[in-house]
C-alpha cells in the first residue's frame, strides 16, 4: 500500500480566514495554513475565503488574493454571488484575478448565500467560466450526509454549461443514489472526496465512472483531513488511481483552464 507521503496531495476544499462560528481551528494567516498542510503532508490547496462565504464576497476575495499572493502551494478560489454580475465593471473586474492567474477556480455557496443555483442565476458568469473551462466548486453547506442537497440544480447546471467543470463538495453516502446517475450522464461533473465515506464507495465510483471523476479534498479547518487521507490510502484503488485522486485530477483540471481567454 502507498504511504501518505508518496502521494502529491492537492486539497480542493480548504477555507482561509477567521471562521467566527467557533470551529476549533481557523487559518487566520498563510503561515498557520501552511503549517497545517505540511503536518498532513498536503503540498497544495485550493482556498476559499471564510469572509467571502459568510459576509462580504468582494472583500473576502480581495483579502484572500492579497494574503496568499506569491505562495506557491496556495491557490485562491473566488467566491461568486449573483449580484456580482449586475455590478458595473462586470465581468472584467470580477474575473480579472482568474484572467491573470491569481485565482485558479470559483466557488458558489447557494445555501449560505440564500439563492437558487440555476443556470439563469449568473448566466454571464457561468458562460464565461464555461468558455474558459474554469472549475466551479458547488458547496451546499453539507455537514451530515442526510442534509438536503438539490441534485436537480447540479444536473441543470451541467446540462447548460457542458464545458464547465463542476465539482460538488462534501457529499456523503447519499451520493451513491443521487450523484452516480449524474456522474454517468455528465462528463463535466466531479466529486470531491472528503465526506464520501460509503464503504467501497471510492472503488465503486472509480469502477463505474473512472477515477478521473474523483478529486481529493479535506474540508479543513472545520473537518478532519485525516479521514479522507486514510480513506484513499486504504481504498482498493490502484496506485495510479490514487495518484490521480490525490492531486493529479485537480492539477489537470486547472491546467486545462484557459483563464487568460476571459
Amino acid at each position, binding site marked *: 500500500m502507498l504511504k501518505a507521503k508518496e502521494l502529491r496531495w492537492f486539497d480542493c476544499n480548504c477555507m482561509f480566514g477567521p471562521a467566527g462560528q467557533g470551529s476549533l481551528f481557523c487559518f487566520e494567516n498563510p503561515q498557520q495554513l501552511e503549517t497545517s498542510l505540511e503536518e498532513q503532508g498536503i503540498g497544495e490547496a485550493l482556498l476559499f475565503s471564510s469572509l467571502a462565504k459568510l459576509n462580504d464576497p468582494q472583500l473576502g476575495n480581495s483579502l484572500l488574493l492579497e494574503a496568499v499572493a506569491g505562495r506557491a502551494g496556495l491557490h485562491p478560489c473566488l467566491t461568486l454571488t449573483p449580484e456580482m454580475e449586475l455590478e458595473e465593471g462586470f465581468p472584467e473586474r470580477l474575473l480579472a484575478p482568474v484572467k491573470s492567474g491569481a485565482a485558479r477556480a470559483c466557488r458558489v455557496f447557494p445555501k449560505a448565500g440564500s439563492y437558487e443555483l440555476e443556470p439563469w442565476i449568473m448566466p454571464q458568469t457561468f458562460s464565461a467560466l464555461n468558455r474558459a473551462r474554469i472549475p466551479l466548486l458547488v458547496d451546499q453547506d453539507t455537514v*451530515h450526509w442526510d442534509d438536503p442537497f438539490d441534485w436537480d440544480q447540479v444536473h441543470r447546471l451541467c446540462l447548460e454549461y457542458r464545458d464547465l467543470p463542476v465539482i460538488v463538495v462534501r457529499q456523503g453516502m447519499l451520493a451513491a443514489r443521487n450523484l452516480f446517475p449524474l456522474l454517468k450522464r455528465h462528463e463535466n461533473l466531479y466529486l470531491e472526496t472528503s465526506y464520501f465515506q*460509503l464503504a467501497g464507495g471510492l472503488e465503486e465510483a472509480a469502477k463505474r465512472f473512472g477515477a478521473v471523476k474523483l478529486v481529493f479534498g479535506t474540508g479543513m479547518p472545520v473537518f*478532519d483531513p485525516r479521514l479522507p487521507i*486514510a480513506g484513499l490510502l486504504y481504498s482498493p484503488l490502484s496506485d495510479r488511481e490514487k495518484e490521480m485522486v490525490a492531486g493529479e485530477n485537480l492539477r489537470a483540471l486547472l491546467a486545462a483552464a484557459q483563464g487568460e481567454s476571459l
Partner: protein
Amino acid sequence: MKRRPRIIDCHAHLGQYRHFPIPLREPERMIAAMDRAGVEAACLSSLTALGADTRLGNTQLIAAAAAFPARLLGWAVPNPHRPAEIAAELERCFRSPWMRGIKLHPMFHAYPAEGANYTPVYEFAQARGLPILNHDWGAAGFLEKLARRYPQARFIQAHTGGWWNGRSEEPYLELARSQPNVYLDTAASIAYYGAFEKLVEAVGADKLLFGSDFPYLDLGYQLGRVLLSSIGEREKRKILGGNAAALFGLG
C-alpha cells in the same frame, strides 16, 4: 520496528440499508476490506434486525459469524416491541460462540431509550456481564442510573466519541471518564479537525473504543481519525483494539 496495533472494530453492521446501497454488504467483501485495513475482527449488528425483521437479521448474523470465525463477531438485537420474546431471542443468539453483546437502536425501532421494555435486556446483560451498545442512550443521567443499577453490564454510547466537536458541553464525556462500566465509541461520519485529540484528553484512552459503522461507513476513513492522530502509541493501541479485546474477552 514498531508493531502494528491490533484493530478491533466494536461498531459494525451486516446487510443492506434503505437510504443508500452498500457495496460491501457480502461478508466475503467485508473480510477483504478488513484485511486491507488490518482489522482483526469486527463486531456486527444486523441492519435487517434493526429494521424490518429482528429474528431474520439475527439469524443472518449468526450465519455470517460462523462462516468467518473470530473475524466477524456479533451484537444480538432484541425487539423492544415484543418484550415477552426478548429473553428467548437473546438465549438463541448467545448459543453462537461469536456473539459478544447486545445492540439497541431506539431510533430505528421507534421505541424510547428509557422504555421499560428494555428491562429484560439489562437483566440478561447483568447476569452474563455483557456489553450493550446503544445508538443513543438519551440523557446521560439516565445511563448513569442504569450503569449503577447493573454494574456487571457494560454500556457503550455509540457515535459520541466520533462526532463531538471538541468544544461543546457533552455530559457523556464526564460520565465515561467517571463511571467504570460506561464507554464511548468513535463511529461517526462527521469528524471535526482536532476534536479527537481533545476527546482522548477529556475521556481518557481506557474508555474509548474504535468503531466505524462499517460497511455503512468506510473503514479507511474511520481509521484515519485514530491512526493518523497525534495521540500517543499506547493510547492508540488501547482505543484501536486493546479495550475492545478486554471487553469482548478476546485473547
